[in-house]
């Protein structure tokens, strides 16, 4: 269910992202619209659907020559398109945070974990080193790391994938943002660790009343974890529905995705192959 605030946390209207390449203009996102309250919204799509670009464009992380346009891109009353770079820096990390797929690539390999988290904190809050260290340890406990004093002194390559991702979450949530964008945060993890990390995210998001955008290719995971699901294909939104009603989804692409998955209790007959309708390239929601 959407949160209790009357104004949505994030409003996106007609977002378009395109890249000029030598072979012509590549339109990664072709005019999508959705809004987000204090809830968990999943964005699902295959590779090339534009889901990652959507997440990045909210935080203005799409670098030139990529071009982002939107009729409306508003976060908590702030027009994200009109904000200048200094204002965006205030928003990034402090009010909107982003967790990405592989902690190997998003954690600084030559800095100890504790230093990185403390640095993230002190970028946005004027606090002393001791206070930052205390908050860091608290945050690591909040992401269920049992021996935070040891982890704080470790380097990123010394921790496992699941722990690295929890460290990322700690780092991104320590400034207490209102919105978290998670781009395939658990795809590089084993399935049991995946669910453990998601449970942590679940608890934190609920406790703090945050909004969460969960970008993934795994439809079943998103449907079981999120409140609402956005299905993207070729840069457009095919369908938006409540997670619990996913089985009753209308759009043939969504149905196709659901039906082509093998199931543990399936009968082993040939999997239904998704038939791509060229009309989907023309129209979206």
């Amino acid at each position, binding site marked *: 269910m959407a949160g209790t605030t009357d104004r949505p946390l994030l409003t996106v209207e007609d977002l378009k992202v395109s890249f000029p390449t030598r072979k012509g203009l590549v339109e990664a996102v072709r005019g999508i619209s959705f809004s987000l309250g204090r809830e968990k919204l999943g964005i699902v799509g*295959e*590779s090339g659907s534009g889901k990652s670009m959507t997440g990045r464009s909210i935080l203005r992380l799409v670098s030139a020559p990529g071009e982002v346009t939107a009729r409306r891109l508003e976060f908590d009353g702030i027009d994200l398109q009109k904000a200048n770079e200094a204002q965006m820096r205030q928003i990034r990390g402090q009010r909107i945070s982003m967790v990405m797929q592989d902690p190997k690539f998003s954690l600084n390999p030559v800095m100890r974990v504790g230093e990185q988290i403390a640095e993230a904190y002190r970028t946005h809050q004027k606090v002393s080193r001791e206070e930052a260290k205390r908050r860091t340890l608290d945050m690591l406990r909040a992401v269920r790391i049992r021996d935070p004093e040891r982890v704080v002194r470790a380097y990123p390559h010394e921790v496992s*994938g699941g722990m690295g991702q929890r460290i990322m979450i700690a780092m991104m949530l320590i400034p207490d943002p209102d919105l978290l964008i998670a781009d395939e945060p658990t795809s590089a993890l*084993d*399935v*049991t*660790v*995946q*669910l*453990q990390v*998601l*449970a942590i995210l*679940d608890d934190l998001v609920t406790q703090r009343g945050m909004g969460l955008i969960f970008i993934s*290719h795994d*439809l*079943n*995971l998103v*449907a*079981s*974890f999120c409140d609402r699901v956005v299905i993207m294909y070729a840069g457009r939104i095919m369908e938006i529905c409540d997670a619990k009603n996913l089985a009753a989804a209308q759009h043939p692409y969504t149905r*196709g*995705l659901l039906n*082509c*998955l*093998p*199931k*543990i*209790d*399936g009968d*082993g007959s*040939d*999997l*239904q*192959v*998704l038939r*791509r309708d060229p009309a989907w390239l023309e129209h979206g929601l």
Partner: protein
Amino acid sequence: MSAVTAKAMIEVEDLNVVFGIGADRVNAVREVTFRVPEGATFGLVGESGSGKSTVLRALSGLNPEWDGRITIAGHDQTTRRGKAFYKTVQMVFQDPYGSLHPRHTVDRILMEPLAIHGFSDPDRRIERVLGEVGLGPSFRFRYPHQLSGGQRQRIAIARALILEPRILLLDEPTSALDVSVQAEVLNLLQLLKKERGLTYILVSHDLSIVAHMCDELAVMNHGAVVEELDVSLLKRHEPKHPYTRQLMIASLGYDRAAVDRFEDFGIES
């Protein structure tokens, strides 16, 4: 010959693989034993670090440092493999973007095994195998970067089949593919198995794929097999070992209450 003692295509007994020396010694594979009858699909399931891929690499001969007994089509294998072995056993790798040489055309990639083994009539064989994996002759002179992930994986399968092996080792063949493409590739693998009477060993971390494709499976954790079961047990949600049960529950999707009951399964002695 009774059904119980039907000839096994692949027999592995007490396979051990150790990496590293001294303090860094890791028992990647510990006393793994299983049999795969001819024409069956055998699944090796586990999370990362379970040793499932290491077993496959030892089976294929890519990793020569193992001990135990490996018997393929009735022949005991040593650490060196001969050309006859490579005509019997082939492998499909996980990463479609890494398993094709970036500077070779599809034609060259498929020609190479034929040249090494001196097969006659290479052009006809190449065209035929391309058709069998659902790609036409227009793909023959493309470079890998001109192919999508699914197409590359089909070429990898074509390359594995062109020597007409009897056994295919499949190392997470679809985990890097989109789900819609995965369905096509899995269907293709099933079709090829039926058409050519192949025996498969499928390694995966995904229980639903294993349930779909396999007749029997072995679940590995920390290098050892914790449970070997018939797929029907899995389909009825009745695995016996708690680790397998946990894996199965995790595969069904996010369930907050279930997550709280997850345990850490360490190395069993």
